């Protein structure tokens, strides 16, 4: 496709500039923050003082250790359970198969804070519904289960990432040629031996790659450390970064110094990830084909396997949701009973609607989410197209690929800190506006948009585009009339995914949202810290209903347009 020299340059160059601008300065500024001890927009004073202060204190190391243990445990457990679920759904005749959609939708539907607060409302030591019920029922004085512990954190952290783990592993099971396993069975190996000697080794790179990703996710998570860790006096590294920016006076320099180490750990992780996927050709898993594998008949195990899967589904999506809705209608935390039904009230909803910036936050989140969805998909789609079609521009394309996947290694936390710095230093007046949030959302979700669009575009035979060029159509006509329409399902999926993830994004938003630019997810955190969990419940319930309706509408419009999502 070299003949499109001019068009190539017209697209590649601006893309590299745009993507480069999103990624590089917001990370580079952290170095600047670390080697100075002056706040942004002040004549910088260069010093090693900040670095020494950050890593000279003994108390940071236990936090670091906590973070590592938390991330390793969460990533490991979530993959084991997620892998089990993916296997059940893809390879067995379990009835759970039909519930897959729920699992895919749950993580994009629920705000991160919801699951955590749901579990606190359930297992909190003082007012957790389970503990209240248990104490009442068994007549015990002490709450039997305390969520505010390290294991409580890992438990909720695992459940929080479970749907995503499922999403990561499911395609691997799906695109793995079942004949590879069948060849093993035919050779005389048992189901278990095939699993151990064929399936797992083949999926090893995928599993390892997923582990790294979830390790990084867990390191960068903030909801569990803030909502469960802090009250339990268990500090993680991410908590320290957050606190450094929240203390008065705020210490962005310290936050930068911490972020740099954080970044170092994730970059090492991503390096390992790249190494593991580099020789992926050896592992014949991802062929882009969907097979129709012979399903394993569970027989007697049907009940057990299905029960486990359903319980997991309930733990992840069902229970917190029920607790939340229950609380939304209660005047104060209350164990469910027939007596408490008398207390049912809708006051919380009225209170939530009138709670400060509640309405504005929802509007902001919706607008920013959709904006980020469309913008990220445009950039990500073009990046994906260049990666697939402009192989002749090897170096620029490789650079573009590395830049656009870099945010996987940059937790939202760092994007948040980096952007605050950057736009306080630069004379671009977007700090404190919606734009800075939009930039954050695009940056954070770019790798996902690229991934989703690339998987769609990879299905399109290049000759479909070449046929259009040869017919006399130029680049834009070809994109508009052939590529965009044929890749429409992926493009819609990418918009929806990024919009939803942006909607529930809170880690970067915490640093960037301010008066007038409040967003839903951060406001929920504020409400939680404000202490009224019943108004919060009502608020979240309403917004969830709204979002669910929006998704249904999105699907409906998609169908009407003849796009299957």
């Amino acid at each position, binding site marked *: 496709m070299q*003949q499109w020299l001019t068009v190539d340059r017209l697209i590649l160059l601006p893309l590299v500039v745009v993507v480069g601008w999103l990624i590089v300065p917001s990370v580079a500024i952290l170095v600047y923050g670390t080697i100075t001890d002056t706040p942004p927009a002040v004549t910088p004073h260069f010093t090693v003082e900040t670095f020494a202060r950050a890593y000279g204190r003994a108390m940071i190391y236990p936090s670091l250790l906590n973070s590592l243990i938390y991330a390793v445990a969460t990533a490991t457990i979530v993959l084991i359970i997620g892998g089990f679920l993916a296997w059940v759904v893809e390879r067995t005749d379990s009835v759970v198969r039909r519930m897959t959609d729920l699992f895919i939708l749950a993580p994009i539907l629920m705000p991160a804070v919801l699951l955590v607060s749901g579990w606190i409302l359930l297992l909190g030591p003082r007012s957790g519904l389970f503990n209240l019920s248990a104490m009442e029922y068994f007549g015990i004085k002490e709450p039997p289960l305390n969520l505010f512990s390290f294991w409580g954190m890992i438990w909720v952290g695992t459940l929080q990432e479970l749907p995503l783990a499922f999403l990561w592993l499911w395609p691997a099971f799906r695109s793995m040629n079942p004949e590879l396993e069948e060849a093993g069975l035919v050779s005389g190996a048992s189901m278990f031996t095939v699993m151990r000697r064929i399936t797992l080794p083949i999926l090893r790179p995928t599993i390892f790659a997923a582990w790294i990703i979830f390790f990084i996710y867990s390191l960068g998570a903030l909801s569990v450390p803030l909502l469960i860790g802090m009250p339990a006096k268990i500090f993680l590294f991410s908590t320290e970064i957050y606190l450094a920016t929240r203390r008065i006076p705020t210490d962005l320099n310290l936050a930068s110094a911490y972020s740099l180490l954080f970044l170092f750990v994730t970059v090492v992780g991503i390096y390992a990830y790249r190494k593991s996927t580099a020789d992926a050709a050896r592992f014949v898993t991802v062929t882009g084909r969907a097979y129709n594998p012979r399903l394993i008949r569970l027989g007697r195990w049907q009940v057990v396997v299905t029960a486990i899967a359903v319980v997991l589904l309930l733990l992840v999506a069902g229970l917190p949701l029920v607790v939340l809705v229950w609380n939304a209608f209660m005047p104060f935390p209350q164990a469910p009973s027939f007596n408490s039904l008398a207390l049912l009230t809708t006051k919380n909803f009225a209170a939530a609607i009138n709670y400060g910036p509640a309405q504005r936050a929802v509007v902001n989140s919706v607008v920013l989410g959709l904006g980020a969805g469309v913008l990220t998909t445009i950039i990500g789609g073009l990046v994906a197209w260049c990666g697939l079609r402009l192989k002749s521009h090897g170096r620029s394309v490789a650079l573009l690929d590395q830049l656009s996947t870099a945010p996987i290694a940059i937790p939202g936390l760092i994007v948040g800190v980096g952007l605050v710095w950057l736009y306080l230093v630069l004379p671009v007046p977007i700090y404190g506006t919606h734009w800075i949030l939009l930039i954050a959302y695009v940056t954070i979700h770019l790798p996902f948009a690229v991934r989703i669009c690339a998987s769609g575009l990879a299905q399109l035979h290049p*000759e479909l585009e*070449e046929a259009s*060029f040869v*017919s006399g159509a*130029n680049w834009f006509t070809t994109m508009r009339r*052939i590529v965009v329409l044929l890749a429409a399902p992926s493009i819609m999926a990418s918009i929806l995914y990024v919009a939803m993830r942006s909607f529930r994004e809170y880690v970067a938003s915490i640093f960037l949202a301010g008066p007038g630019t409040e967003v839903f997810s951060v406001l929920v955190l504020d409400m939680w810290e404000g202490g009224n969990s019943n108004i919060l419940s009502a608020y979240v319930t309403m917004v969830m209903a709204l979002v669910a309706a929006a998704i249904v509408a999105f699907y409906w419009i998609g169908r009407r347009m003849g796009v299957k999502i």
Partner: protein
Amino acid sequence: MIGLTHLSRSFRTEHEAVVAMDDLTLEVESHSFFTLLGPSGCGKSTLLRCVAGLETPDFGEIVIGNNVAFSSAQGINVPANRRHIGMVFQSYAIWPHMTVFKNVAFPLEVQRKPNVRERVLNALAMVELDKLADRYASQLSGGQQQRIAFARAIVAEPDVLLLDEPLSNLDAALREQMRAELRNLQDRLRITTLYVTHDQEEALSLSDRIAIMRNGRFVEIASPEELYNKPKTVFTARFIGSANIVEGTVKGRDGPRGAAEIATPFGTVWSAAPGAATAEADVTLFIRPERIRPVVGEAGLPTDRNVYSCTVRSHLFVGDNRELELVLPGVKDGSTMRCKWAAEFRVSTGQTVRIHIDPTDVHLLADA
């Protein structure tokens, strides 16, 4: 007319530098059907894609009709969408989100040509698909998709038609049928056609002229008959049809224009058309399997030249023919002579048969 001059292109893979086109010069006459034939990786598809404008040569010149489409010297590189060509792709590349009509109408629409409806229906009628105009491509068979691709390629009346292994994805019966139709359509439309294939049968039956390609070079350019009957190189002889290749040394000739007597591992072989070969020259002989005839009884042989007794190593019944491998006397290295006889001629393994090769069927090849 398509003219290629000193066309070169190489690219680097991870392990090596590959020369896809090595100084290729060629002229395809107007209205003719020209085929690029060669094994995979010989550069034939690269050449076709360069003519289409989908790839760019490093060096050289491409002329399509009266226009220079590419010239490294003049810095000209007309993009694919302005070369005015029609192309049928290996995968057909029928757009699945458009109807058959829309697919065929696309070139006319983007080139802003008038009478779209009429021309599309004409093109569809030509490939006998006018009744399916409102269908979507996904509802059509491979053969039908192939016809749409052809209709789309010719609808805007391009200067040249480029076909990239268009029959390779069809099953055997359909392929033969489409082959006949393709030749038929080209006879009627008389568009200058450049065709790429690795299938020698397709090449022989469709083409006016064929270029045999190997490692980015033209090995031989000639008409199908010439290539089959009088190949000049071992590569061509082996690539087109099957061939027995024998090394030998010229012992002497019946005069300067006469037959040559050639010493080979299985004895003396006479060739009626040895060209300029002189005594003591090392030569490579080439004999088509179907030209080797069994000798039944002593009668009817015009000469005793080129008659041998040999043993049947193996025999295969392939329907209309019987394919044999014969071991010739005195041959120690295990090499055999392949021949193709009528199916009625029954033999058994190990049996001794006598064969005769007419000296006019023994050709000398240039060193490949």
